[in-house]
């Protein structure tokens, strides 16, 4: 039953859908990394427009989970439903609607910032005018023509954010987005990738206090398994820290 594009919150047809389609729904997701299980039996549900914070120590499987949601990794067991499409069969249907900001900026060092964004714009079928708009939003209009090779780490991160939101994705997948950014830059990016953006977001971070403040739900991972899952309001940072970072 094809999901009408964009209408995520409620279903128009009289289809007997018990609950409004969640933006993201995982049931028993498992994924091996080589021969070692990286994720085991992860189930979580995220409503459209909300933010889920993913916490956990290094190697807990946070980045793996994000890459599965970004359709970069196929789930080995369990089911993943993303923006109305089930992965991995219908991955191609959602690829254009996801903004992924990982550890790698995914930019070509020898091309300039503008050339990189124009390249991604054309791949996603986005009007070139949007490139200048986004460059202005991240405050890089001035340095847009310098090769990425010459840009500082913070500037590259801002360019990567520009790339991630260029095609106005419905779902943002952010892996420690504020790494390498000074407070002023973080402030500037808030409307693009922060809670203010109004987009559905999955945020991987180590900043427990920040996560509880800016997200609706929290998913804690330990050794690839769900250690805790609760609305952000009900959690106390010290308790979260002791549970996840023993």
């Amino acid at each position, binding site marked *: 039953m094809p999901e009408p594009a964009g209408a995520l919150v409620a279903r128009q047809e009289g289809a007997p859908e018990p609950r409004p389609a969640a933006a993201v729904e995982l049931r028993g997701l498992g994924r*091996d*990394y*080589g*021969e*070692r*299980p990286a994720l085991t039996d992860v189930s979580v549900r995220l409503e459209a427009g909300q933010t889920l914070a993913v916490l956990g120590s290094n190697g807990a499987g946070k980045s793996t989970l994000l890459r599965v949601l970004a359709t970069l990794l196929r789930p080995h067991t369990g089911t993943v439903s993303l923006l109305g499409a089930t992965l991995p069969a219908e991955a191609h249907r959602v690829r254009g609607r996801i903004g992924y900001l990982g550890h790698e900026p995914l930019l070509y060092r020898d091309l300039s910032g503008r050339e990189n964004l124009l390249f991604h714009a054309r791949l996603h079928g986005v009007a070139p005018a949007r490139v200048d708009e986004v460059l202005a939003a991240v405050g890089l209009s001035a340095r847009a023509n310098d090769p990425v090779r010459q840009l500082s780490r913070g500037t590259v991160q801002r360019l990567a954010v520009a790339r991630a939101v260029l095609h106005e994705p419905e779902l943002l997948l952010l892996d420690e987005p504020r790494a390498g950014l000074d407070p002023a830059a973080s402030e500037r990016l808030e409307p693009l990738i922060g809670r203010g953006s109004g987009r559905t977001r999955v945020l991987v971070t180590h900043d427990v206090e920040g996560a509880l403040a800016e997200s609706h739900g929290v998913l804690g991972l330990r*050794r690839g398994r769900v250690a805790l899952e609760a609305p952000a309001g009900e959690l106390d940072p010290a308790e979260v820290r002791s549970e996840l970072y023993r």
Partner: protein
Amino acid sequence: MTSLASTSDPSAAKVRRGFGRGLVPLSAVTLVAMAVALGMVFFYAPLDADQGFVQKIFYLHVPMALVALVGFIAAGVMGFAHLRSGDRRWDLRSYVAIHISTILAVGVLATGSIWARASWGHWWVWSEPMLVAFLIVFLLYAVYPMLRFSIEDPGRQARSASVFAVAAGAFVPLNFAAVRSAQSLTHPQVFSTTGGGMPGEMFATFLVGLVAMALLFVTLWKLELTAKHAAEQLRAVRRRIEAAADDGDPVGAPVAEPGRPLAGAAS
């Protein structure tokens, strides 16, 4: 041969059938076929008019070549089946088929050069299409293990290996066509694979030899599959024990978690 994966856990939903079934009868049939073939080669087939006794190598060299080629092409088909179905056992079958075909290819090159020495006086003859084509095929498939071992992630390794198997499998017949058409066929085409010009007894001997070689291939193929599958199951058990150990259970106790058969290999 009883099924390999007998499991003590009664709730094991599906006893995983190993690859070992039917290996003993198959080996018996292969042994008989090879004995018959050998007997026919030396006591039934008449001596070749001009080549004399040396021509006997034909009954070994050509069947080995044909079986190796079919093995490479079959490996390509299995690789494609792995890519389509995602079932890693197809990759295992393709891997083993290429392994055996490569070893047979060495045999083809060795027996071919011995035959060239015996009938034309030197070990390597560039104008013999079977030999030249097999050298190229061998050079190509010798890279297969290097490709597999230089990729760590098992999933990606299996996929790259399967894509290689498909491409190389399709290349093999084309390679023969290229080498054959590049040859100016100056000297007598001694062993045309169709064996058109051969008297009845010779052709019969050749066929029996071909069947024997094919049976040998399948036997070795099943043998190695059994060994590799057992090794994989062992690794799965080892991982389960180490995982159990990490989660604070007493070291080394192979805990059969309810519902999950201890010996079930990771799917």
